[in-house]
């Protein structure tokens, strides 16, 4: 699949959608300068609907979700190391945000196909892992 969007945007396809949003299967990953390390996962057909996201390894270098071979193969991968992994962030108020480490999204960088997976060791991870927010 060839990216045909503007700079800093990547179209991705999540055939199963996100849990709770099974009808939205096409998204745009959008990075905005100044918002690093965050980026947006926008619903392609309605781009004002969006999820804030972050790469978990920047926060927890030892983050190691056990993603099943079946899940990896469903997006055309053999190893998790080949994937672009990201997690959804919830802004809870001023100075408060959490990241869902329990349900990472695993993306095939080449095919731009991804899936929100439940790792076999999901019990080890919080769905509301607090993010270290800088003091205002």
């Amino acid at each position, binding site marked *: 699949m060839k*990216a045909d969007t503007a*700079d*800093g945007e*990547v179209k991705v396809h999540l055939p199963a959608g*996100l*849990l*709770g*949003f099974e009808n939205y299967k096409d998204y745009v*990953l*959008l*990075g*905005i*300068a100044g*918002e*690093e*390390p*965050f*980026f947006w996962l926008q619903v392609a057909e309605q781009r*004002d*609907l*969006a*999820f*804030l996201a972050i*790469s978990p*390894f*920047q*926060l927890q*270098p030892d983050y190691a979700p056990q993603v*099943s*071979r*079946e*899940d990896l193969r469903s997006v055309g991968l053999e190893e998790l*190391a*080949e*994937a*672009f*992994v990201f997690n*959804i*962030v*919830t*802004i809870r108020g001023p*100075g*408060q*945000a959490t990241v*869902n480490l*329990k*349900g990472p999204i695993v993306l095939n*960088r*080449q095919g731009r196909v991804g899936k*929100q997976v*439940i790792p076999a060791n*999901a*019990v080890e991870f919080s*769905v*509301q892992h607090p*993010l*270290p*927010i*800088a*003091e205002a």
Partner: protein
Amino acid sequence: MLILSRKLNESIVIDGRITVRIMRVDGDIVKLGIAAPSEVPVHRQEVYDEIQKSNREALTTASRAVPRLATAAVRGPANPIICRQESQLQPDTERRT
């Protein structure tokens, strides 16, 4: 919904390859033993519910102010999505140094 009665140590078989056995009954706690091929995901319902709820809470409908992380917390490189070439999307493991 199919409803079956089972006694201790009795099982049901699903699709000829998944066996669910009643291992122990202790008051209102039932311990199940599930034997399934490794490619069959088995999770507690709560895990699905939790992630679904989290996704719903995370959805934003307007451009919200993005929080700023404490810089000491971010060990990795800049935003990997702001890139123009596919080749710049390198595996995370390579960037984790």
